[in-house]
């Protein structure tokens, strides 16, 4: 149950600084509507980043998520176009995610490959197959009943925001209060002793990939229904967004570390960056550089020892 408070602390400091700057520079940023929009835009990233968290927790990584997203979106589109009921559409998308996650997990664990290499190869395979199958065409004109998920509101708050909160709560619960969730941490922290403790390491790692696939599938449903159309090249470069979100939120890329609240804050920062920069009036040409810089700084800030900093601020130099 150890929490990586350091990352969350660093992130919170970061948030305070950013919000402070925004209050001075762009008060228009602080509106209910904008807050809701930011949450809405975070929803897909946050949900899928929680999936990435699971894979990172067991000490693996999944760079095929962008292609999995595209596959799940396509499935959502096809099923919705076939006028299937909403539940079936969701089930279908999630099932595709789970299946691809399963393939990822099996390839990584059974062939004993570095996760980054295996999922890199699979990324290329999924993308290729997807274009071959869909012939690269877009899916448009989804029926109203499914669009409600992405576009509907309840109590003036968009449905995806609720979904995100529910998924986050479920993941928090799984990761902290179930055997499986804790096994993710154990496997990522020390695979050998996990094996000796009687944990089925291979199955646990596969499970992490499947959970990741399922959550990407859930994100895909929202992604698809928000705009009612799917491009076959959806999700290109998305793996970097998800990994950044998880890592900025304090997840370790070597496993065993990271939690839901951190990853949620990380996803929020990563996906709100674009909005921040628009309000801040950063020249669009430099947007990417500034984004990279902010992510760099936020990650680098973990290297700062807060205890030492505190010591120094409160009179410091006691050591001498």
């Amino acid at each position, binding site marked *: 149950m150890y929490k990586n408070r350091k990352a969350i602390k660093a992130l919170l400091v970061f948030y305070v600084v950013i919000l402070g700057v925004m209050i001075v520079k762009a008060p228009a940023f602080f509106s209910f509507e904008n807050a809701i929009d930011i949450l809405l835009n975070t929803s897909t990233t946050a949900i899928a980043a929680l999936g990435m968290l699971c894979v990172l927790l067991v000490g693996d*990584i999944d760079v095929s998520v962008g292609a999995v997203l595209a596959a799940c979106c396509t499935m959502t589109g096809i099923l919705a176009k076939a006028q299937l009921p909403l539940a079936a559409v969701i089930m279908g998308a999630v099932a595709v995610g789970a299946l691809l996650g399963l393939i990822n997990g099996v*390839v990584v664990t059974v*062939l*004993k*490959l*570095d996760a*980054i*290499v*295996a999922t*890199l*190869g*699979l*990324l*290329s*395979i999924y*993308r*290729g*197959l997807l*274009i*071959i199958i869909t012939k*690269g065409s877009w899916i448009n004109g989804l029926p109203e009943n499914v669009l409600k998920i992405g576009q509907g509101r309840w109590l003036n708050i968009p449905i995806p925001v609720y979904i995100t909160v529910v998924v986050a709560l479920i993941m928090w619960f799984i990761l902290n209060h179930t055997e499986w969730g804790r096994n993710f941490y154990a496997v990522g922290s020390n695979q050998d002793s996990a094996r000796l403790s009687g944990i089925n390491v291979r199955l646990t790692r596969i499970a992490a990939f499947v959970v990741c696939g399922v959550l990407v599938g859930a994100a895909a449903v929202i992604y698809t229904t928000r705009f009612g159309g799917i491009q076959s090249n959806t999700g290109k470069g998305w793996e*970097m967004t998800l*990994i*950044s979100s998880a*890592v900025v939120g304090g997840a*370790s*890329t*070597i496993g065993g570390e990271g939690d839901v609240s951190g990853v949620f804050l990380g996803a929020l920062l990563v996906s709100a960056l674009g909005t921040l920069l628009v309000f801040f009036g950063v*020249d669009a*040409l*430099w*947007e*990417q*550089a*500034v*984004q*990279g*810089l902010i*992510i*760099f700084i936020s*990650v*680098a800030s*973990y*290297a700062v020892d807060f205890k030492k900093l505190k010591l120094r601020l409160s009179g410091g130099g006691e050591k001498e």
Partner: protein
Amino acid sequence: MKKLVKNNFFVLILVLVIVMAVMSGMSDYFLTADYLLNATRFISETSMIGLGMTLVILTGGIDLSVGSMMALSSVCLGLTCQAGIPAGLAAAVSLLVGIAGGALNGYAVCKMNLPALIVTLATMGLFRGIALGISGGSAIPIPKSLYFLGQGSIGPLPVQLVITTTAYIVIAFFIYKSNFGIYLKGIGYNEEVAVFSGIKVTWNKVKAYMLSGFFAAFLGILFTCRVSSAKADYGSNYEMDAITIAVFGGASLAGGKVSFAGSYIAAVIIVLIRLGLTTAAIQTEIQSVIIGLILILAVAFNNFVASKKKIEI
């Protein structure tokens, strides 16, 4: 030579021969001197990005920023030339930018103790962002005097081929013959032992990252000279190519174990497959499936061979 065989070199050569056979069966043009000489331009470029990556993987790190660094170097070259700085000096500036970028990566990884994957993920965005910002996104023409580097030939051999092969030989020779090589190997396998052995761990690792940045920047120059203009969108996804090559060539991402000869041959194989399939008019999406499969199978096969060997000892 014994060492090479041990590094799955033999397997790679066999794969190469098979690839050549399959490709020449699919297209009549494949096994012609012209075609293959021309192909070496692309092979050289891809293998050069793999060279820096192989070095970084040797230390147990990874460098995702190479593709972006390539774009940044390209744009720097274009802008400095445009500003009227002589071509040679402009190229030197680009290389310096590469080394500086590598030093930034190295500093964050080694001095601040951050995971390489994360640091270089961030600088990947940063470098490309800077390239975009300073260039404004548009293509910048470069002076004709530079074309030779990308389009010229030395005797019958394309310039890139000569440069990259030389770079590989120099680096491989250096790693084999110098203290630096065994230091990197020691650091890659067990950093703490290296610290206790009085090896300048930080400095040696930073050097590896700087070399990676240097080669990425060098590639940026060669590439710019081949296509005769500089642009901020060059080199996207090259980091993935680079990792593929290094791992396919026999490197272990855990560090310590790499093969330069392996990386070189791996680049030849991967590029020849890509080019050959294009020549044979195979659709790119099918190509990507094939290349993905080959990557997974080849690495799985390498692991299989390695694990067999361990038991035999």
